[in-house]
């Protein structure tokens, strides 16, 4: 699907902008630890510019509001509280009515449907100063892509107010799970980041594990027991065609990840009981051994510039996190806290490593700086594992498995302040999420 983004000509909305309302600077919320009151916003149902756009006009506003509300940075003001009736995208905004209900940001929009095409326009207002926050934009696409258009609007709103990149127009590939613990069936699935539009990419005839997006979001690496032994496959999401990455007979390979260029795969290979890290040129199939110790080395993840790899090793006697050059060689340990550390994932910003920590009978998702400092645990439960970063490095999705005979896996997300924890709704159980880059 292609999207055109066109700058709208701004219509004069000066009538009600009681200009210099003693506001210090533009509307802005800074995402930090120990935050802050969520910023109250309103998204009235969009104006339906054509007769058959009525349903979409409400749906778009609903998805945009859910995106923003879900961040924990914003708080939605429900339409039941509205004083002003929003009907016309080009009519002046009655800022006092929005101020009276304490809205600080207002998103308005209009949608028209022509055949199979949708056109969406929107504006963002700073209610306190009564001004536009950035320019109006419009997107067009096909009707079945309407949710993406809503996510794009929400990404714009989020970016303009937080100064951070958005993450709503993104997808998640994960393992859909069904059945009891001793007969669990697993298949790959892909969905929008918010759980909508689930599609299955494999059947559940063999165990599949830990899918990982390519940097361009078009392919997925995963591990499958199709041959009876764990092997790495690369799957094209569009065509659902897959191929195995060759490995020597008698070996097992798993825990793959793409390099930032998308041309190299780093992974674990077990041979003779020993697990080390290798990299492979995905086109030529040539592989290079990066670690060579009798310890378990697994769960490798590249730095965003591709120069380094963070991984997990029990060479010290218990699983800990290490960083080495992308070409292998000496590794430096970065985790020194109590407990066992695993599944490190470098953040897309490069500043943090997310990890799984097991300590005193509990599991945690945590983050630390790449030198191991400033460790913070964001979650705690019977079993949390396998973090993956949102494209803007502000949110982490992971697997949570409940305890006991009825134990089941589901997907959760948590922001990096640790304040906003929520379950991601999936039709069946879910595990091993991998977040795509922002779509284009």
């Amino acid at each position, binding site marked *: 699907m292609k999207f055109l983004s066109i700058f709208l000509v701004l219509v004069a909305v000066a009538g009600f902008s009681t200009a210099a309302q003693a506001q210090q600077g533009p509307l802005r919320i800074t995402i930090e630890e120990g935050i802050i009151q969520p910023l109250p916003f309103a998204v009235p149902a969009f104006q339906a510019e054509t007769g058959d756009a009525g349903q979409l006009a409400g749906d778009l506003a609903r998805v945009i509001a859910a995106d923003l509300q879900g961040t924990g940075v914003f708080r939605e003001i429900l339409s039941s509280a509205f004083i002003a009736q929003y009907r016309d995208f080009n009519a002046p905004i009655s800022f006092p009515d929005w101020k009276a209900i304490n809205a600080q940001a207002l998103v308005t929009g209009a949608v028209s449907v022509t055949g199979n095409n949708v056109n969406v326009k929107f504006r963002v207002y700073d209610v306190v100063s009564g001004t536009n926050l950035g320019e109006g934009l419009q997107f067009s696409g096909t009707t079945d892509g309407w949710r993406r258009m809503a996510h794009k609007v929400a990404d714009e709103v989020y970016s303009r107010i937080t100064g951070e990149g958005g993450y709503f127009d993104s997808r998640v590939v994960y393992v859909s799970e069904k059945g009891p613990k*001793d007969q*669990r069936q697993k298949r790959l699935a892909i969905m929008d980041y918010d759980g909508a539009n689930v599609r299955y990419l494999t059947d559940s005839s063999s165990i599949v594990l830990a899918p990982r997006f390519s940097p361009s979001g078009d392919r997925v690496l995963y591990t499958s027991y199709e041959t009876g032994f764990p092997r790495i496959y690369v799957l094209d999401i569009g065509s659902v065609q897959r191929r195995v990455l060759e490995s020597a007979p008698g070996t*097992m390979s798993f825990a793959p990840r793409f390099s930032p260029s998308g041309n190299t795969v780093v992974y674990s290979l*077990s041979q003779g*009981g020993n697990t080390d890290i290798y990299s492979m040129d995905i086109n030529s199939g040539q592989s290079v051994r990066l670690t060579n110790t009798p310890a378990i080395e697994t769960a490798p993840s590249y730095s965003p510039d591709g120069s380094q790899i963070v991984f997990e090793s029990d060479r010290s006697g218990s699983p800990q996190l290490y960083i080495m050059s992308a070409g292998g060689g000496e590794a430096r340990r970065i985790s020194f806290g109590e407990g066992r550390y695993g599944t490190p994932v470098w953040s897309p910003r490069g500043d943090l490593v997310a990890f799984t920590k*097991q300590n005193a009978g509990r599991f945690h998702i945590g983050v630390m700086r790449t030198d191991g400092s400033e460790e913070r645990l964001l979650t705690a439960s019977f*079993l949390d594992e396998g973090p993956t970063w949102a494209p803007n490095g502000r949110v982490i999705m992971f697997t949570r498995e409940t305890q*006991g*005979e009825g*134990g089941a896996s589901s997907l959760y997300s948590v922001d990096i302040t640790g304040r906003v924890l929520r379950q991601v709704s999936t039709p069946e159980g879910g595990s091993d999420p991998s977040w795509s880059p922002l779509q284009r």
Partner: protein
Amino acid sequence: MKILPLSLLVAAIALSACTNPNRFGADGAGSANPAVGQPLGGVIPGSANDPRSPAYFNQTVGDRVLFNVDQSTLTDVGRATLDGQAGWLMTNSDYQAVIEGHADEQGTREYNLALGARRANAAQEYLVSRGVPASRLRVVSYGKERPIEICSSEACYAKNRRAVTVLAGGLTS
């Protein structure tokens, strides 16, 4: 259990299967060992009291060994079971085997895959050291993906930390 020389152990198993019960409750069938008290003349081929049958291997010899938390070192009990497996495999040379390594649910998916590989390999190396040709054995790790017990306590975890020798091939399988 004492570790006996291989030749003695094989003989011991053949003579008195009931002294080597199914310690690990495979298939929940441990209490119903049809070999107990039956004359050798009454064996039904392929049944658990036919010493050449996979059922005998699984239930009487014992198809699995268990491991301590985070360990891939064989226990004394585990070595004794593998001695029995080695003897059986040497006698029944038309069988091959895949040794499946497993972990309990504590630990990450990736680490447990690697740990299962260590466990399967420990069992394989022991069998090879007892004379089973390496060419007849393969290893695979399932990590924590295939528990047989589903509670979240040590009683279940102890049974899930295992290496299971799964027979393949053979004339009657």
